[in-house]
């Protein structure tokens, strides 16, 4: 449930807002639907990582990864896949930490 909410909202926000909108979404969504720390963190992590991966691929596949390969060379990585993995990891950590924060804030003010 939590994963689905964060995934859909983050996916849509990516076309309109700046990247840290994902953090706000994960935070708010967890206040609404978060239950345990692990469930919150991993829902946030996986949802945002997945959205970032999909968004990146939506741009990079029709480009035959020309740019991603050039940028990989710039930062001395072996290929575009690595950039995708790092992108997803960063998105995941931000999503996971925001979701966890949402849960902990909810717990601070309610008796869940």
């Amino acid at each position, binding site marked *: 449930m939590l994963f689905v909410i964060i995934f859909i909202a983050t996916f849509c926000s990516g076309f309109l807002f700046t990247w840290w909108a994902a953090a706000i979404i994960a935070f708010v969504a967890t206040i609404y639907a978060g239950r345990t720390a692990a469930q919150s963190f991993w829902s946030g992590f996986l949802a945002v990582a997945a959205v970032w991966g999909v968004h990146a691929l939506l741009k990079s596949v029709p480009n035959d990864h*020309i*740019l991603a390969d050039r*940028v990989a*060379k710039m930062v*001395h990585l072996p290929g575009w896949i690595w950039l995708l993995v790092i992108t997803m990891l*960063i998105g995941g950590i931000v999503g996971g930490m925001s979701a966890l924060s949402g849960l902990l804030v909810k717990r601070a003010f309610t008796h869940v």
Partner: protein
Amino acid sequence: MKYFKAIFSVAVTLALIWALQHRFELLSNLPLGNFLNPANGFWQNSESKHILVAEDLKIEGLQQPVTIRFDSNMIPHIFAKNNHDLYLAQGYITARDRLWQMDIQTRSASGRLSEVVGPKALEVDRYHRRMGMVYGAENTLKGMMKDPVMREVINAYTEGVNSYIRNLSPRDYPIEFKILDYAPEEWKPINCAFLLKLMSETLAGGSDEFLMTSTLKKFGAATVKDLFPDYPFREDPIIPVGTKWDFKPLPIPQPSKTFLAEQSDIKTIQKVEGIGSNNWVIAGSKTASGYPILANDPHLNLTLPSIWYQMQLEAPGVNVYGVTLPGAPCVVIGYNNKISWGVTNVDADVLDWYQIKFKDNTKNEYWYNNKWNKVTRRVEVINIRGEKPLYDTVLYTHHGPVVYENAGKKPADSYENIPVGTALRWIAHDESNEFKTFYLLNRGKNYDDYREALTYYTAPAQNFIFASADKDIAITPNGKLPLKFKDQGKFILDGTDPANDWHGWIPASQNPTAKNPAQGYLSSANQSSTDPSYPYYINWQFGPYERGKRINTRLAAMQKATVDSMRVLQTDNYSIFAQDVLAEMLKYIDPTKLDETQIQVLNILKSWNKRFDADEVGATIFNTWWLNFYTQTWQDQFGKLTDNNNLKWPSRDRTVQLLLKDPTSKWFNNTKTPVVETAGEVLSNSFAATVSQLMHKYGKPGNSKWQWGNVKETYINHLANIPGFGLGKFKAGGTGSTVNALVDGHGPSWRMVVQLGPNVKGYGIFPGGESGNPGSYFYDDMLKTWQDGKLNELLFMQSPNEQSNKIKSTLTLSAK
């Protein structure tokens, strides 16, 4: 506890987001989250291979709709209904493809790089400010804005660029903005002037005066006169020898007393070869079509994005195709239905240094014209990313800025060619209106229009070559050329004496020019503008003559020439230099004294075809041998080239002359050895050194590593040297002294051939692509064709509705 947990977790998350928004030296200096996220990071710059066939955009400032058709190389063909909209669209479209390039080039010229890259660019910024680039651009802007036509052009262009910028959100920024983490700023009319200053710096910003002055002090006037003559031993000048000067010259100024004293007293950034260009034109009498053919290939730094941007501009009164400079209106090199023109650098001496005598350490007054004169001060504010701004005060005399008033102000290990305590007089400081020349050429119909257009041109002086459908051909070394006494500015000048000032200008109508000569062709390759019969002094040294000689020899031999004859000549690797000296050099080598490997190398060289083709081994041997010979000849007396002892080495031309005419000259004697050497010994020694040097580096002779294309460094890097964004090193033929002057990171930045006639046909190519975006299919799509030495047939449309299978998409711009 639960409160603590919540606060801690939120704090960690916020810190994480903050960190991902900011730059850290450790992480390639990238704001990782900002850069990598797909919402507005670099992934957004990946352009799809699917092109929109039709697009409508509403933009600010247009008066009427503009149609832009893009061909298969994404070259825009702009059709507007008036001048204002034409240049507005030019600005808009150029910015769409090249915004970051426009930003960084004008930042560089205006000394504002530190604002975005921090303190490491500070000395470059200071140098540009102290050279008076901003001061010069302000003066040029004044000149452009006084002219109502050019004011409209510049303002419309600026409006177009800004229409594009204002619609950008961070996700749309070109990738370099995201890498360097800054935002585009509004374009200003003065930025167009900065581009001209940048060109002046590249082409007319070097000076040997400091080196020549130290050389004069060390060796004395007689030796300097002998080793640094005012006219080369071998020359094939741009204006054909024997051309009559059809004017009454102004009185030639007299040398100042200080100058004469310097000349009789026996006691007071060398230029890079290869930054030059070729252009030529062949008359209808010598072509297959019966109409002239014009060719041009400017040699400049080769970068991605390319220095040039191709465009067609059409509006009532104008329909022109060619290359533009991103950030400047009009077409710079190109053609229309009636005429074609091209440019190469003149190398006129338009930059002089004046020794300043200050009254005291306050440096408030300086001695000039027998009295103390007030120094004016200009404060340059250099903003530095992450640091406090630097306030740099530059002293201005009536000559110009004192670039480094004392040694303490001059950075160590750079700008060696700038003498301390001297003021700079530079043509790039003067009020000017160069774009008017291009504006008029874009609309030109005949020879008279060409001559009229040239009168507006100031700097950097260019050899303007011309051909028309009326079958006229012409060339004019053209610019605002100072009226000087002979050799004025060959050395640093005494700034106290008004007799050393520039004495006015050579009248534009008296700039050297030639029209429809009997020989049936005209050309330029940066060599001397004229033979010594021209009454005025332009400079004492020009580009070496070999490229010009080869071009003229080939053009003279041509009959029924075609576009392809010109293309082949543009990529010609034959070495006139080797033709001039190789046989003579080989004469001194005695095979009986050589070992087996040396004989093998000698034989390769003897059978070499004198071409600097990529797979020639002979070219490598010859080039290395000459460099060793040249170095061994001069190094003992002039110090190592890298020594920074501020001496100028004699030219290749003078060295060739000594070898051919005076092989026992004292200059061949190595003063560090007890025996007396002549050219023969130096050649034998340098040949042996060459063989062991090449063996050591590349292994056994004949091995493919010895091939010229592998030995020569040729590369195309990204404009900011970002790894992965350039082409890197590649195998190629050519050298600085061949027509195909491709060497290091510079060479033919645009090759164009235009066949004039009732239906003009243009061909052209540049190494790169139209887009400045490394994530675009059109970032480097023309590279391969350029590397193969081929040209693209250019699509020159006569109306927006013309049908062509080359048209891939149409963009309609209308007013918002």
